[in-house]
Protein backbone atom coordinates (compact mmCIF):
# COMPACT_ATOMS: atom_id res chain seq x y z
CA UNK A 1 0.00 0.00 0.00
CA UNK A 2 1.12 3.48 -0.73
CA UNK A 3 0.24 6.40 1.43
CA UNK A 4 2.08 7.10 4.55
CA UNK A 5 4.38 4.81 6.32
CA UNK A 6 3.75 3.85 9.87
CA UNK A 7 5.62 5.57 12.62
CA UNK A 8 9.31 5.01 12.82
CA UNK A 9 10.65 2.92 15.73
CA UNK A 10 12.28 6.04 17.12
CA UNK A 11 8.99 7.84 17.32
CA UNK A 12 7.47 4.91 19.12
CA UNK A 13 10.18 4.97 21.68
CA UNK A 14 9.67 8.56 22.67
CA UNK A 15 5.91 8.37 22.89
CA UNK A 16 5.13 4.83 23.86
CA UNK A 17 8.37 3.23 24.82
CA UNK A 18 7.87 3.50 28.49
CA UNK A 19 4.25 2.38 28.56
CA UNK A 20 3.64 -1.09 29.83
CA UNK A 21 1.05 -3.41 28.34
CA UNK A 22 -2.28 -3.28 30.17
CA UNK A 23 -3.09 -6.96 30.35
CA UNK A 24 -6.78 -6.38 31.09
CA UNK A 25 -7.24 -4.22 28.06
CA UNK A 26 -5.11 -6.50 25.89
CA UNK A 27 -7.30 -9.43 26.93
CA UNK A 28 -10.31 -7.64 25.44
CA UNK A 29 -8.67 -7.36 22.04
CA UNK A 30 -10.20 -9.81 19.55
CA UNK A 31 -7.77 -12.29 18.09
CA UNK A 32 -8.02 -10.93 14.54
CA UNK A 33 -6.38 -7.67 15.63
CA UNK A 34 -3.51 -9.27 17.52
CA UNK A 35 -1.10 -8.75 14.66
CA UNK A 36 -1.78 -5.06 14.29
CA UNK A 37 -4.43 -2.41 13.88
CA UNK A 38 -4.53 -0.08 10.90
CA UNK A 39 -5.58 3.49 11.66
CA UNK A 40 -7.12 5.74 8.98
CA UNK A 41 -6.55 9.44 9.38
CA UNK A 42 -7.12 12.34 7.01
CA UNK A 43 -3.76 13.96 7.57
CA UNK A 44 -3.19 16.80 8.09
CA UNK A 45 -5.73 18.21 10.51
CA UNK A 46 -3.41 20.10 12.74
CA UNK A 47 -2.71 19.78 15.56
CA UNK A 48 -4.53 16.45 15.76
CA UNK A 49 -2.53 14.91 12.94
CA UNK A 50 0.12 16.31 10.68
CA UNK A 51 3.39 15.37 9.04
CA UNK A 52 6.83 16.11 10.36
CA UNK A 53 9.73 17.20 8.14
CA UNK A 54 10.41 13.61 7.17
CA UNK A 55 6.85 13.05 6.13
CA UNK A 56 6.13 10.80 9.08
CA UNK A 57 2.80 11.29 10.76
CA UNK A 58 2.77 13.11 14.06
CA UNK A 59 0.26 15.06 16.13
CA UNK A 60 -1.88 14.31 19.13
CA UNK A 61 -3.91 11.57 17.47
CA UNK A 62 -0.74 9.90 16.30
CA UNK A 63 0.87 9.97 19.72
CA UNK A 64 -2.31 8.71 21.31
CA UNK A 65 -2.55 5.88 18.79
CA UNK A 66 0.96 4.74 19.61
CA UNK A 67 0.18 4.87 23.32
CA UNK A 68 -2.95 2.80 22.76
CA UNK A 69 -0.87 0.32 20.81
CA UNK A 70 1.54 0.04 23.70
CA UNK A 71 -1.31 -0.57 26.13
CA UNK A 72 -2.80 -3.25 23.94
CA UNK A 73 0.51 -4.78 23.03
CA UNK A 74 -0.07 -4.48 19.29
CA UNK A 75 1.29 -2.22 16.63
CA UNK A 76 -0.97 0.57 15.42
CA UNK A 77 -0.02 1.77 11.93
CA UNK A 78 -1.12 5.30 11.19
CA UNK A 79 -2.19 5.82 7.55
CA UNK A 80 -3.17 8.88 5.58
CA UNK A 81 -6.64 8.39 4.14
CA UNK A 82 -8.66 10.97 2.21
CA UNK A 83 -11.86 11.89 4.01
CA UNK A 84 -14.06 11.01 1.03
CA UNK A 85 -12.94 7.42 1.18
CA UNK A 86 -12.55 7.02 4.90
CA UNK A 87 -15.65 4.92 5.59
CA UNK A 88 -15.18 2.69 2.54
CA UNK A 89 -11.61 2.14 3.64
CA UNK A 90 -12.93 0.61 6.87
CA UNK A 91 -15.72 -1.31 5.21
CA UNK A 92 -13.37 -2.83 2.69
CA UNK A 93 -10.94 -3.91 5.40
CA UNK A 94 -8.16 -1.60 4.27
CA UNK A 95 -8.11 0.05 7.68
CA UNK A 96 -9.64 -0.85 11.03
CA UNK A 97 -10.28 2.34 12.98
CA UNK A 98 -10.47 6.09 12.39
CA UNK A 99 -8.46 8.59 14.39
CA UNK A 100 -8.95 11.81 12.50
CA UNK A 101 -10.25 14.29 15.01
CA UNK A 102 -13.70 13.04 14.10
CA UNK A 103 -16.56 14.54 16.08
CA UNK A 104 -18.83 12.06 17.80
CA UNK A 105 -22.39 12.90 16.69
CA UNK A 106 -25.67 11.06 17.12
CA UNK A 107 -26.04 10.66 13.39
CA UNK A 108 -22.58 9.23 12.93
CA UNK A 109 -23.21 6.72 15.69
CA UNK A 110 -25.49 4.96 13.22
CA UNK A 111 -22.39 3.83 11.37
CA UNK A 112 -19.56 3.95 13.87
CA UNK A 113 -18.99 3.50 17.56
CA UNK A 114 -16.87 6.21 19.11
CA UNK A 115 -14.40 5.98 21.94
CA UNK A 116 -14.36 9.59 23.11
CA UNK A 117 -10.99 11.02 24.03
CA UNK A 118 -11.28 14.72 23.46
CA UNK A 119 -13.74 17.50 24.11
CA UNK A 120 -13.39 20.84 22.39
CA UNK A 121 -15.35 24.03 22.45
CA UNK A 122 -15.87 26.27 19.46
CA UNK A 123 -13.94 29.38 18.63
CA UNK A 124 -14.53 32.05 16.05
CA UNK A 125 -11.85 32.88 13.51
CA UNK A 126 -11.84 36.40 12.12
CA UNK A 127 -9.46 38.31 9.87
CA UNK A 128 -6.52 39.78 11.72
CA UNK A 129 -7.50 42.99 13.46
CA UNK A 130 -11.11 41.84 13.75
CA UNK A 131 -12.42 44.53 11.33
CA UNK A 132 -16.07 43.68 12.01
CA UNK A 133 -15.64 43.79 15.79
CA UNK A 134 -17.00 40.30 16.45
CA UNK A 135 -16.85 39.57 20.14
CA UNK A 136 -19.56 36.99 20.67
CA UNK A 137 -21.74 34.53 18.81
CA UNK A 138 -24.51 37.15 18.90
CA UNK A 139 -22.28 39.46 16.89
CA UNK A 140 -22.47 36.96 14.03
CA UNK A 141 -26.15 37.77 13.47
CA UNK A 142 -26.67 39.19 9.99
CA UNK A 143 -23.16 38.16 8.95
CA UNK A 144 -21.93 35.41 6.70
CA UNK A 145 -20.08 32.57 8.38
CA UNK A 146 -17.81 30.08 6.66
CA UNK A 147 -17.67 26.54 8.03
CA UNK A 148 -16.43 23.20 6.87
CA UNK A 149 -19.26 21.15 5.50
CA UNK A 150 -21.06 18.72 7.78
CA UNK A 151 -19.25 19.65 10.94
CA UNK A 152 -20.99 20.09 14.25
CA UNK A 153 -20.58 23.85 13.87
CA UNK A 154 -23.77 24.01 11.86
CA UNK A 155 -25.67 23.00 14.98
CA UNK A 156 -24.15 25.90 16.82
CA UNK A 157 -25.26 28.32 14.14
CA UNK A 158 -28.74 26.85 14.26
CA UNK A 159 -28.79 27.35 17.99
CA UNK A 160 -27.77 30.99 17.76
CA UNK A 161 -30.04 31.86 14.87
CA UNK A 162 -33.37 32.02 16.77
CA UNK A 163 -32.06 34.86 18.89
CA UNK A 164 -30.92 36.87 15.86
CA UNK A 165 -33.07 39.57 14.31
CA UNK A 166 -31.13 39.05 11.10
CA UNK A 167 -30.14 35.45 10.56
CA UNK A 168 -26.61 34.17 10.20
CA UNK A 169 -25.87 33.18 6.61
CA UNK A 170 -23.79 30.01 6.29
CA UNK A 171 -21.36 29.04 3.53
CA UNK A 172 -20.24 25.43 3.68
CA UNK A 173 -16.93 24.32 2.23
CA UNK A 174 -15.41 20.90 1.66
CA UNK A 175 -12.25 21.73 3.55
CA UNK A 176 -11.31 24.16 6.24
CA UNK A 177 -8.76 25.68 3.85
CA UNK A 178 -11.55 26.70 1.48
CA UNK A 179 -13.40 28.29 4.37
CA UNK A 180 -10.27 30.27 5.23
CA UNK A 181 -9.96 31.42 1.62
CA UNK A 182 -13.55 32.61 1.71
CA UNK A 183 -12.83 34.72 4.77
CA UNK A 184 -9.72 36.17 3.20
CA UNK A 185 -11.58 36.92 -0.03
CA UNK A 186 -14.25 38.78 1.89
CA UNK A 187 -17.00 36.30 1.12
CA UNK A 188 -17.52 35.57 4.81
CA UNK A 189 -16.98 37.67 7.92
CA UNK A 190 -15.87 34.89 10.19
CA UNK A 191 -15.39 31.17 10.56
CA UNK A 192 -16.45 28.87 13.35
CA UNK A 193 -14.03 26.12 14.27
CA UNK A 194 -13.06 23.60 16.88
CA UNK A 195 -10.98 25.48 19.42
CA UNK A 196 -7.75 23.61 18.78
CA UNK A 197 -8.07 24.02 14.99
CA UNK A 198 -8.87 27.72 15.29
CA UNK A 199 -5.78 28.27 17.38
CA UNK A 200 -3.60 26.47 14.88
CA UNK A 201 -5.13 28.41 12.01
CA UNK A 202 -4.49 31.77 13.62
CA UNK A 203 -0.94 30.71 14.39
CA UNK A 204 -0.05 29.25 11.00
CA UNK A 205 -1.95 30.93 8.15
CA UNK A 206 0.21 33.64 6.58
CA UNK A 207 2.70 33.03 9.38
CA UNK A 208 0.15 34.30 11.84
CA UNK A 209 -0.72 37.45 9.93
CA UNK A 210 -4.07 36.49 8.43
CA UNK A 211 -6.37 35.55 11.29
CA UNK A 212 -7.04 35.88 14.95
CA UNK A 213 -9.21 33.83 17.31
CA UNK A 214 -12.13 35.29 19.20
CA UNK A 215 -13.28 33.34 22.23
CA UNK A 216 -16.96 34.18 22.34
CA UNK A 217 -18.21 35.78 25.48
CA UNK A 218 -21.66 34.22 25.19
CA UNK A 219 -20.97 30.63 24.24
CA UNK A 220 -24.35 29.00 24.74
CA UNK A 221 -24.41 26.00 27.01
CA UNK A 222 -24.49 22.70 25.20
CA UNK A 223 -22.45 23.97 22.33
CA UNK A 224 -19.34 24.83 24.16
CA UNK A 225 -17.95 21.41 23.76
CA UNK A 226 -18.29 18.52 21.40
CA UNK A 227 -16.76 15.11 21.90
CA UNK A 228 -14.19 13.77 19.54
CA UNK A 229 -13.76 10.04 19.27
CA UNK A 230 -11.99 7.09 17.76
CA UNK A 231 -14.33 5.59 15.16
CA UNK A 232 -14.78 1.81 14.97
CA UNK A 233 -17.20 -0.07 12.74
CA UNK A 234 -20.26 -1.20 14.68
CA UNK A 235 -19.58 -4.84 13.91
CA UNK A 236 -16.26 -4.66 15.79
CA UNK A 237 -17.79 -3.98 19.23
CA UNK A 238 -15.08 -5.98 21.01
CA UNK A 239 -12.38 -3.87 19.44
CA UNK A 240 -14.20 -0.75 20.68
CA UNK A 241 -14.18 -2.09 24.20
CA UNK A 242 -10.48 -2.90 24.07
CA UNK A 243 -9.66 0.58 22.82
CA UNK A 244 -11.86 2.15 25.47
CA UNK A 245 -10.03 0.17 28.13
CA UNK A 246 -6.68 1.24 26.73
CA UNK A 247 -7.64 4.92 26.58
CA UNK A 248 -9.06 4.75 30.09
CA UNK A 249 -5.84 3.18 31.28
CA UNK A 250 -3.86 6.01 29.63
CA UNK A 251 -6.07 8.58 31.36
CA UNK A 252 -5.58 6.81 34.65
CA UNK A 253 -1.79 6.59 34.50
CA UNK A 254 -1.33 10.21 33.39
CA UNK A 255 0.08 9.48 29.94
CA UNK A 256 -3.01 11.07 28.43
CA UNK A 257 -2.48 14.32 30.30
CA UNK A 258 1.17 14.51 29.32
CA UNK A 259 0.33 13.95 25.66
CA UNK A 260 -2.29 16.71 25.78
CA UNK A 261 0.25 18.89 27.41
CA UNK A 262 2.81 18.15 24.72
CA UNK A 263 0.39 19.49 22.08
CA UNK A 264 -0.91 22.38 24.18
CA UNK A 265 -4.35 20.83 24.32
CA UNK A 266 -4.81 20.42 28.04
CA UNK A 267 -7.93 22.58 27.96
CA UNK A 268 -9.73 19.91 26.00
CA UNK A 269 -9.24 16.88 28.20
CA UNK A 270 -12.02 14.39 28.99
CA UNK A 271 -12.42 12.84 32.40
CA UNK A 272 -13.14 9.34 31.18
CA UNK A 273 -13.16 7.43 27.95
CA UNK A 274 -16.84 6.93 27.16
CA UNK A 275 -18.32 4.99 24.28
CA UNK A 276 -20.70 7.07 22.19
CA UNK A 277 -20.68 9.79 24.81
CA UNK A 278 -22.70 12.23 22.72
CA UNK A 279 -26.37 11.84 23.58
Amino acid at each position, binding site marked *: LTGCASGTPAAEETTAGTIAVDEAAAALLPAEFKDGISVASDIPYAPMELFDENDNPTGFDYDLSQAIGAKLGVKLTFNDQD*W*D*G*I*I*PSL*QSGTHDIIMSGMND*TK*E*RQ*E*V*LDFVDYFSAGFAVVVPAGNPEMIKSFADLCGKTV*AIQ*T*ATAQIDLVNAVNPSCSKKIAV*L*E*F*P*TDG*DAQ*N*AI*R*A*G*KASAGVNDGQVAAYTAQTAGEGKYFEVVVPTDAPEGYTSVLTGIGVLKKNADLTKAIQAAVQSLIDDGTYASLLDKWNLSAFAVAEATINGTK
Partner: protein
Amino acid sequence: MANKQSNDDVVAVPLRHPWRWVSAVILVAILGLFVYSLWASPNINHEIVSKYLFNEKVIAAAGLTVSLTVISMLIGTILAIILAIMRLSSNPVLKLVSIGYIGFFRGTPLLLQVVFWGYLGIIYPTIDIGIPFTDMIWWSEKTSLVFTSLVAGIIALSLNEAAYSAEIVRAGILSVDSGQAEAAKSLGMGSGYTLRRIVLPQAMRVIIPPMGNEFISMLKNTSLLQVVAVMELYARTSQISSQNLAQVELLVVAGFWYLVMTTVLSFPQSYLEKKYGRGFSVATQKSRWLRIGMKGNV
Protein backbone atom coordinates in the same frame (compact mmCIF):
# COMPACT_ATOMS: atom_id res chain seq x y z
CA MET B 1 -36.05 -21.93 -47.06
CA ALA B 2 -34.83 -21.76 -50.60
CA ASN B 3 -37.50 -24.15 -51.85
CA LYS B 4 -40.13 -21.82 -50.51
CA GLN B 5 -39.01 -18.77 -52.41
CA SER B 6 -41.69 -17.63 -54.78
CA ASN B 7 -39.37 -15.88 -57.22
CA ASP B 8 -35.65 -15.50 -57.64
CA ASP B 9 -35.23 -13.28 -54.58
CA VAL B 10 -31.96 -13.74 -52.81
CA VAL B 11 -33.14 -15.33 -49.61
CA ALA B 12 -29.83 -16.26 -48.17
CA VAL B 13 -29.43 -18.10 -44.93
CA PRO B 14 -27.82 -15.51 -42.73
CA LEU B 15 -24.31 -16.16 -41.58
CA ARG B 16 -24.63 -18.03 -38.32
CA HIS B 17 -23.09 -16.28 -35.37
CA PRO B 18 -22.96 -18.85 -32.61
CA TRP B 19 -20.38 -16.82 -30.70
CA ARG B 20 -22.57 -13.79 -30.86
CA TRP B 21 -25.22 -15.55 -28.84
CA VAL B 22 -22.85 -17.32 -26.53
CA SER B 23 -21.15 -14.04 -25.77
CA ALA B 24 -24.50 -12.32 -25.23
CA VAL B 25 -25.57 -14.96 -22.75
CA ILE B 26 -22.28 -14.85 -20.90
CA LEU B 27 -22.38 -11.07 -20.74
CA VAL B 28 -25.92 -10.95 -19.44
CA ALA B 29 -25.00 -13.57 -16.87
CA ILE B 30 -21.96 -11.64 -15.69
CA LEU B 31 -23.91 -8.41 -15.52
CA GLY B 32 -26.68 -10.10 -13.60
CA LEU B 33 -24.29 -11.70 -11.13
CA PHE B 34 -22.56 -8.39 -10.70
CA VAL B 35 -25.70 -6.38 -10.06
CA TYR B 36 -26.99 -9.09 -7.75
CA SER B 37 -23.79 -9.25 -5.77
CA LEU B 38 -23.70 -5.46 -5.52
CA TRP B 39 -27.23 -5.40 -4.27
CA ALA B 40 -26.72 -8.27 -1.88
CA SER B 41 -23.61 -6.74 -0.34
CA PRO B 42 -24.26 -6.21 3.38
CA ASN B 43 -22.13 -3.09 3.25
CA ILE B 44 -24.62 -1.17 1.19
CA ASN B 45 -27.55 0.03 3.19
CA HIS B 46 -30.52 0.04 0.83
CA GLU B 47 -32.63 2.08 3.20
CA ILE B 48 -30.23 4.99 3.18
CA VAL B 49 -29.93 4.82 -0.59
CA SER B 50 -33.66 4.95 -1.09
CA LYS B 51 -34.11 7.57 1.62
CA TYR B 52 -31.81 10.03 -0.13
CA LEU B 53 -32.45 9.08 -3.74
CA PHE B 54 -35.43 11.37 -3.99
CA ASN B 55 -34.53 13.69 -1.15
CA GLU B 56 -35.64 17.13 -2.24
CA LYS B 57 -32.31 18.74 -1.43
CA VAL B 58 -30.55 16.18 -3.58
CA ILE B 59 -32.97 16.80 -6.42
CA ALA B 60 -32.57 20.55 -6.10
CA ALA B 61 -28.81 20.10 -6.18
CA ALA B 62 -29.11 17.96 -9.30
CA GLY B 63 -31.16 20.73 -10.87
CA LEU B 64 -28.47 23.26 -10.00
CA THR B 65 -25.87 20.97 -11.55
CA VAL B 66 -27.83 20.79 -14.77
CA SER B 67 -28.33 24.57 -14.93
CA LEU B 68 -24.68 25.27 -14.25
CA THR B 69 -23.69 22.76 -16.91
CA VAL B 70 -26.04 24.07 -19.56
CA ILE B 71 -25.11 27.70 -18.99
CA SER B 72 -21.38 27.04 -18.89
CA MET B 73 -21.49 24.79 -21.96
CA LEU B 74 -23.40 27.42 -23.89
CA ILE B 75 -20.99 30.22 -23.11
CA GLY B 76 -18.05 27.85 -23.50
CA THR B 77 -19.14 26.62 -26.91
CA ILE B 78 -19.60 30.09 -28.30
CA LEU B 79 -16.15 31.05 -27.08
CA ALA B 80 -14.80 27.77 -28.42
CA ILE B 81 -15.98 28.47 -31.95
CA ILE B 82 -14.37 31.88 -31.82
CA LEU B 83 -11.13 30.39 -30.48
CA ALA B 84 -11.10 27.66 -33.12
CA ILE B 85 -11.53 30.20 -35.89
CA MET B 86 -8.81 32.35 -34.40
CA ARG B 87 -6.50 29.37 -34.20
CA LEU B 88 -7.09 28.49 -37.85
CA SER B 89 -6.83 32.08 -39.01
CA SER B 90 -3.74 33.36 -40.75
CA ASN B 91 -3.60 36.39 -38.51
CA PRO B 92 -0.58 35.68 -36.32
CA VAL B 93 -1.85 37.74 -33.38
CA LEU B 94 -5.19 35.98 -33.26
CA LYS B 95 -3.55 32.62 -33.73
CA LEU B 96 -1.10 33.15 -30.90
CA VAL B 97 -3.76 34.48 -28.58
CA SER B 98 -5.85 31.41 -29.26
CA ILE B 99 -2.95 29.00 -28.77
CA GLY B 100 -1.98 30.79 -25.59
CA TYR B 101 -5.50 30.78 -24.26
CA ILE B 102 -6.03 27.10 -25.01
CA GLY B 103 -2.65 26.22 -23.57
CA PHE B 104 -3.17 28.17 -20.40
CA PHE B 105 -6.74 27.21 -19.64
CA ARG B 106 -6.29 23.54 -20.48
CA GLY B 107 -2.94 23.55 -18.78
CA THR B 108 -3.84 24.73 -15.33
CA PRO B 109 -6.13 22.80 -13.00
CA LEU B 110 -9.76 23.79 -13.19
CA LEU B 111 -9.71 23.89 -9.42
CA LEU B 112 -7.10 26.62 -9.53
CA GLN B 113 -9.26 28.56 -11.94
CA VAL B 114 -12.34 28.12 -9.77
CA VAL B 115 -10.39 29.24 -6.75
CA PHE B 116 -8.98 32.16 -8.69
CA TRP B 117 -12.35 33.50 -9.76
CA GLY B 118 -14.02 32.54 -6.53
CA TYR B 119 -11.43 34.16 -4.34
CA LEU B 120 -10.40 36.98 -6.63
CA GLY B 121 -10.95 39.08 -3.55
CA ILE B 122 -7.82 37.68 -1.96
CA ILE B 123 -5.70 39.15 -4.70
CA TYR B 124 -7.80 42.13 -5.70
CA PRO B 125 -9.87 43.21 -2.69
CA THR B 126 -11.77 45.76 -4.77
CA ILE B 127 -12.47 46.09 -8.46
CA ASP B 128 -11.70 49.57 -9.69
CA ILE B 129 -12.36 51.00 -13.07
CA GLY B 130 -10.00 53.84 -13.76
CA ILE B 131 -6.65 54.66 -15.29
CA PRO B 132 -3.92 52.30 -14.13
CA PHE B 133 -1.09 53.74 -12.07
CA THR B 134 -2.98 56.94 -11.40
CA ASP B 135 -5.49 57.87 -8.77
CA MET B 136 -8.27 58.20 -11.29
CA ILE B 137 -10.96 55.72 -10.26
CA TRP B 138 -14.45 56.03 -11.64
CA TRP B 139 -16.07 53.01 -10.13
CA SER B 140 -15.09 50.73 -7.34
CA GLU B 141 -16.77 47.78 -5.70
CA LYS B 142 -15.85 44.98 -3.37
CA THR B 143 -14.76 42.03 -5.46
CA SER B 144 -16.68 39.52 -3.43
CA LEU B 145 -19.91 41.30 -4.26
CA VAL B 146 -19.28 41.34 -8.01
CA PHE B 147 -17.94 37.83 -8.24
CA THR B 148 -20.48 35.93 -6.23
CA SER B 149 -19.81 32.24 -5.95
CA LEU B 150 -22.20 31.36 -8.74
CA VAL B 151 -20.92 34.02 -11.11
CA ALA B 152 -17.34 33.06 -10.37
CA GLY B 153 -18.15 29.39 -10.87
CA ILE B 154 -19.85 29.94 -14.20
CA ILE B 155 -17.00 32.15 -15.40
CA ALA B 156 -14.42 29.56 -14.39
CA LEU B 157 -16.27 26.65 -15.98
CA SER B 158 -17.06 28.52 -19.21
CA LEU B 159 -13.58 29.87 -19.76
CA ASN B 160 -12.09 26.46 -19.07
CA GLU B 161 -14.56 24.62 -21.24
CA ALA B 162 -13.95 27.00 -24.13
CA ALA B 163 -10.33 25.87 -24.28
CA TYR B 164 -11.23 22.20 -24.52
CA SER B 165 -14.11 22.65 -26.93
CA ALA B 166 -12.00 24.86 -29.18
CA GLU B 167 -9.80 21.89 -29.99
CA ILE B 168 -12.83 19.79 -30.80
CA VAL B 169 -14.28 22.44 -33.07
CA ARG B 170 -10.93 22.82 -34.77
CA ALA B 171 -10.73 19.10 -35.44
CA GLY B 172 -14.25 19.23 -36.82
CA ILE B 173 -13.44 22.07 -39.18
CA LEU B 174 -10.32 20.26 -40.37
CA SER B 175 -12.41 17.20 -41.17
CA VAL B 176 -14.40 19.06 -43.82
CA ASP B 177 -13.02 18.66 -47.30
CA SER B 178 -11.34 21.81 -48.53
CA GLY B 179 -13.28 21.56 -51.79
CA GLN B 180 -16.34 22.57 -49.80
CA ALA B 181 -14.92 25.90 -48.79
CA GLU B 182 -13.64 26.46 -52.32
CA ALA B 183 -17.06 25.79 -53.77
CA ALA B 184 -18.55 28.21 -51.27
CA LYS B 185 -15.99 30.86 -52.10
CA SER B 186 -16.59 30.44 -55.80
CA LEU B 187 -20.24 31.22 -55.15
CA GLY B 188 -19.23 34.48 -53.53
CA MET B 189 -19.82 33.41 -49.95
CA GLY B 190 -17.77 35.25 -47.36
CA SER B 191 -15.76 33.39 -44.78
CA GLY B 192 -18.27 33.90 -41.99
CA TYR B 193 -21.14 32.70 -44.10
CA THR B 194 -19.15 29.74 -45.38
CA LEU B 195 -18.30 28.78 -41.86
CA ARG B 196 -21.84 29.06 -40.61
CA ARG B 197 -23.71 27.45 -43.47
CA ILE B 198 -21.27 25.13 -45.17
CA VAL B 199 -18.39 24.11 -42.96
CA LEU B 200 -19.80 23.94 -39.44
CA PRO B 201 -22.91 21.95 -40.40
CA GLN B 202 -20.66 19.34 -41.97
CA ALA B 203 -18.21 19.49 -39.10
CA MET B 204 -21.01 18.83 -36.63
CA ARG B 205 -20.97 15.12 -37.38
CA VAL B 206 -17.45 14.99 -36.05
CA ILE B 207 -17.94 17.58 -33.34
CA ILE B 208 -20.98 16.16 -31.59
CA PRO B 209 -19.62 12.93 -30.09
CA PRO B 210 -16.63 14.52 -28.35
CA MET B 211 -18.83 17.44 -27.31
CA GLY B 212 -21.04 14.86 -25.64
CA ASN B 213 -17.96 13.88 -23.69
CA GLU B 214 -17.38 17.47 -22.70
CA PHE B 215 -20.95 17.91 -21.62
CA ILE B 216 -20.73 14.91 -19.38
CA SER B 217 -17.37 15.97 -17.98
CA MET B 218 -18.86 19.35 -17.27
CA LEU B 219 -21.74 17.80 -15.35
CA LYS B 220 -19.16 16.35 -13.05
CA ASN B 221 -16.72 19.24 -13.05
CA THR B 222 -19.39 21.42 -11.54
CA SER B 223 -18.55 19.53 -8.36
CA LEU B 224 -15.39 21.59 -8.10
CA LEU B 225 -17.56 24.59 -7.38
CA GLN B 226 -18.05 23.26 -3.88
CA VAL B 227 -14.78 24.94 -2.97
CA VAL B 228 -16.56 28.23 -3.50
CA ALA B 229 -19.61 26.99 -1.58
CA VAL B 230 -21.88 26.18 -4.49
CA MET B 231 -24.09 23.31 -3.38
CA GLU B 232 -24.41 21.24 -6.50
CA LEU B 233 -25.13 17.55 -6.56
CA TYR B 234 -21.79 16.21 -5.48
CA ALA B 235 -21.29 18.83 -2.77
CA ARG B 236 -24.74 18.06 -1.43
CA THR B 237 -24.32 14.31 -1.29
CA SER B 238 -20.87 14.54 0.24
CA GLN B 239 -22.23 16.98 2.78
CA ILE B 240 -24.87 14.47 3.73
CA SER B 241 -22.42 11.62 3.78
CA SER B 242 -19.93 13.31 6.02
CA GLN B 243 -22.75 13.85 8.45
CA ASN B 244 -24.11 10.34 8.43
CA LEU B 245 -20.95 8.66 7.19
CA ALA B 246 -22.90 6.68 4.58
CA GLN B 247 -20.28 7.50 2.01
CA VAL B 248 -20.80 4.59 -0.36
CA GLU B 249 -24.57 4.92 -0.23
CA LEU B 250 -24.46 8.61 -1.08
CA LEU B 251 -21.99 8.02 -3.86
CA VAL B 252 -24.51 5.57 -5.23
CA VAL B 253 -27.20 8.24 -4.96
CA ALA B 254 -25.01 10.76 -6.76
CA GLY B 255 -24.07 8.12 -9.33
CA PHE B 256 -27.71 7.40 -9.97
CA TRP B 257 -28.48 11.03 -10.69
CA TYR B 258 -25.44 11.52 -12.88
CA LEU B 259 -26.46 8.45 -14.80
CA VAL B 260 -29.97 9.82 -15.21
CA MET B 261 -28.64 13.17 -16.40
CA THR B 262 -26.25 11.67 -18.93
CA THR B 263 -28.82 9.22 -20.19
CA VAL B 264 -31.32 12.00 -20.72
CA LEU B 265 -28.63 13.96 -22.48
CA SER B 266 -27.95 11.14 -24.89
CA PHE B 267 -31.33 11.67 -26.57
CA PRO B 268 -30.65 15.17 -27.87
CA GLN B 269 -27.18 13.94 -28.80
CA SER B 270 -28.42 11.14 -31.00
CA TYR B 271 -31.05 13.47 -32.45
CA LEU B 272 -28.34 15.95 -33.39
CA GLU B 273 -26.15 13.19 -34.76
CA LYS B 274 -28.98 12.10 -36.99
CA LYS B 275 -29.76 15.62 -38.04
CA TYR B 276 -26.24 16.47 -39.04
CA GLY B 277 -25.66 13.04 -40.50
CA ARG B 278 -28.29 13.69 -43.14
CA GLY B 279 -26.89 13.61 -46.64
CA PHE B 280 -24.01 11.58 -45.29
CA SER B 281 -26.37 8.67 -45.58
CA VAL B 282 -23.19 6.84 -46.38
CA ALA B 283 -22.29 7.43 -42.79
CA THR B 284 -24.83 4.86 -41.78
CA GLN B 285 -23.71 2.49 -44.47
CA LYS B 286 -20.24 3.06 -43.21
CA SER B 287 -20.68 0.58 -40.48
CA ARG B 288 -20.98 -2.02 -43.17
CA TRP B 289 -17.33 -2.37 -43.80
CA LEU B 290 -16.84 -2.89 -40.15
CA ARG B 291 -19.39 -5.61 -40.19
CA ILE B 292 -18.36 -8.43 -38.10
CA GLY B 293 -21.36 -10.33 -39.31
CA MET B 294 -23.80 -9.45 -42.06
CA LYS B 295 -27.53 -9.07 -42.08
CA GLY B 296 -29.49 -11.93 -43.49
CA ASN B 297 -32.29 -11.77 -46.01
CA VAL B 298 -31.29 -8.49 -47.54
